[in-house]
């Protein structure tokens, strides 16, 4: 529900991005004229096969991969994550341990929780208050019992980077496969997988202005692999199922565009993000940016607003045509705040009120100015309703000031 005549402002690009018009245009013929199955032995198939090869080369370039054959197309980031971890376990059946972190995406965490029930040991690396890992703790866990390390490149809520290149080298030295969920990082920061020790990397098309329903797993040549899906011989037998050809074409174009706009992402978008952060924090008391703010994605800003709840903020922002997202519990139907905020030890007084603003190259300075103007009255309005906020600020010791009559 938005106020009429207000142009919507989209600041939820870590959830999904608008598919680039160039990608859409490129995809269209593959629904109509170029509808052949790339596996078919006739000219309809051959033309399509040739086009998907071109798209693969574009993605190879974006990732800085040595060979285009190192790319396996999947239905998205989740499938890529699942494939990487399950493949590593099947390829190394004698190893029953996995190393990951407490702040991973649910595509990794929920899979690990299931694997734990099946008898695997999961080591979840803890993070500090800024969402940073302790590499000494990591080093101690690198034993010959570990089948795979799976750690995200950049956190989807805070944007905080993990030192994955260094961690991959440490894993390699210990003879352990290394996977990174780079869904948020791909397209936003320069990558050079060829010169890294990373064995597997997941990405998703719709996070970089490509279409939804397409992703990829980078698999270093020579790394042991077992397919998740078996059937036909597509993707060199590593991912069965007829290819999502329009998606692959769209992702290829999105990869080209991402490379073209990489510098803009790290200058223009970063500057807009920093302006948004400074503008909001200057106007709203009892608010702070979460995560490692000096070491994060250029487009991501996560602010914790104390004593108010995230979903309520989102609804009021939405009324003004501003789309963001929240790690708050109520948006997911449970009452627990985001596992990322809890892992960082963000107190409940703030964890429930986190809002993630994730920008893209399509945002403008005028939009950022409008958001900076909109947020302070929204927070003030909700704090007026809150039993934890008094006339002049937060009540002293809110847990005591608000004392339910039951234990």
């Amino acid at each position, binding site marked *: 529900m938005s106020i009429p005549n207000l142009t919507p402002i989209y600041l939820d690009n870590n959830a999904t991005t608008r598919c680039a018009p160039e990608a859409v245009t490129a995809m269209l013929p593959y629904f109509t004229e170029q509808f052949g199955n790339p596996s078919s032995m006739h000219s309809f198939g051959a033309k399509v096969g040739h086009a998907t090869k071109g798209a693969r080369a574009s993605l190879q370039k974006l990732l800085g991969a040595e060979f285009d054959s190192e790319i396996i197309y999947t239905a998205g980031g989740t499938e890529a994550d699942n494939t990487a971890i399950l493949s590593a376990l099947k390829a190394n059946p004698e190893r029953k341990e996995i190393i990951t972190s407490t702040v991973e995406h649910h595509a990794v965490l929920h899979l690990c929780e299931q694997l734990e029930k099946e008898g695997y040991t999961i080591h979840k690396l803890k993070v500090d208050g800024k969402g940073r890992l302790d590499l000494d703790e990591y080093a101690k866990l690198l034993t010959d019992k570990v089948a795979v390390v799976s750690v995200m490149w950049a956190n989807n809520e805070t944007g905080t980077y993990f030192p994955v290149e260094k961690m991959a080298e440490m894993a390699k030295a210990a003879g352990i496969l290394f996977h990174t969920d780079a869904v948020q990082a791909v397209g936003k920061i320069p990558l050079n997988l060829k010169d890294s020790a990373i064995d597997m990397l997941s990405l998703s098309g719709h996070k970089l202005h490509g279409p939804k329903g397409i992703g990829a797993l980078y698999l270093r040549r020579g790394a042991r692999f077992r397919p998740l899906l078996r059937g036909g011989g597509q993707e060199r037998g590593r991912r069965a199922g007829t290819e999502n050809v329009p998606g692959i074409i769209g992702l290829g174009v999105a990869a080209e565009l991402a490379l073209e706009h990489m510098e803009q992402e790290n200058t223009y978008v970063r500057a807009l993000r920093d302006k948004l952060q400074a503008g909001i924090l200057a106007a709203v008391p009892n608010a702070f940016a979460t995560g490692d703010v000096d070491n994060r994605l250029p487009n991501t800003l996560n602010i914790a607003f104390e*004593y108010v*709840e995230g979903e*309520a903020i989102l609804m009021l922002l939405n009324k003004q045509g501003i789309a963001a997202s929240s790690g708050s519990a*109520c948006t997911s139907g449970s009452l627990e705040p985001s596992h990322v905020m809890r892992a960082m030890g963000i107190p409940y007084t703030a964890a429930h009120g986190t809002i993630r603003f994730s920008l893209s190259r399509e945002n403008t300075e005028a939009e950022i100015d409008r958001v900076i103007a909109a947020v302070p009255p929204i927070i003030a309005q909700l704090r*007026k*309703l*809150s039993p934890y906020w008094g006339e002049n600020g937060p009540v002293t010791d809110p*847990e005591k000031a608000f004392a*339910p009559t*039951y234990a």
Partner: protein
Amino acid sequence: MWDYSDTVKEHFYNPRNAGALADANAIGEVGSISCGDALRLMLKVDPGNETILDASFQTFGCGSAIASSSALTEIIKGKTLEQALEVSNQDIADFLGGLPPEKMHCSVMGREALQAAVANYRGEEWKDDHEEGALICKCFAVDAVMIEETIRANNLCSVEQVTNYTKAGGGCSSCHEGIEEILAKVLAERGETFKAAPPPEKKVPGKMTTLERIRKIEQVIEKARPNLQRDHGDIELVDVDGKNIYVSMKGACAGCQMEAATLGGVQAQMVEALGELVKVIPVKATAKLAPNTLPA
């Protein structure tokens, strides 16, 4: 974004009776900031006739928590305390044109705040009897604590039984894995191993003679008795009158706080066994019920 009704949105964007009530003489506080939901309900009660003259709220919570609080204050203003206590969380949800299943806890919080406020006015201590756990069944808004307690109280051992007693799992089936995990945990506590039951046989409805029907009803009762007897209770068949099956709850089952859940489970099994809608009625409640009333 949740699919909120227009009324929910209206009460969220324009909450009624928000803020502190200076001359409140009844205050109910429920929830906490760690839970992510907190509500302070303030009432001005006329001591002469115990009518609620004014009501206001302060809420920390999501859109539906604020809307539920606003709705509650509108519903109870002008009511006596006794009338207000009749207001259920479903009444709050209905007033708002419904709430998503995941948000029903917001209406429960409203009802609890009301009970706490009335207790506060009367100088009593109000005890929360609702321990909310993770939401397992989103179709029917049943949480883990409810499922665990029902499994323990009734010695349940299958997802089908849990569905019969709590409704959890009776909708989209996406929570069956979660229910099985709870079953495995509770069964392990009593030294048993959970085994997934084979899918139930599909019953083909057919006509039964009166004798066959009575025998089926007796079989269901007999099947339920050992579990109840283990908890020092029992159930007896008293009479069958068309769609109404009258039973008597005995021993610890009589007046037990889980009696309604037990009867609900027996009724669900009756419906399953007979292939028709019937109502299982405890004999003490017969006077209150209209004859031939079918279950909702």
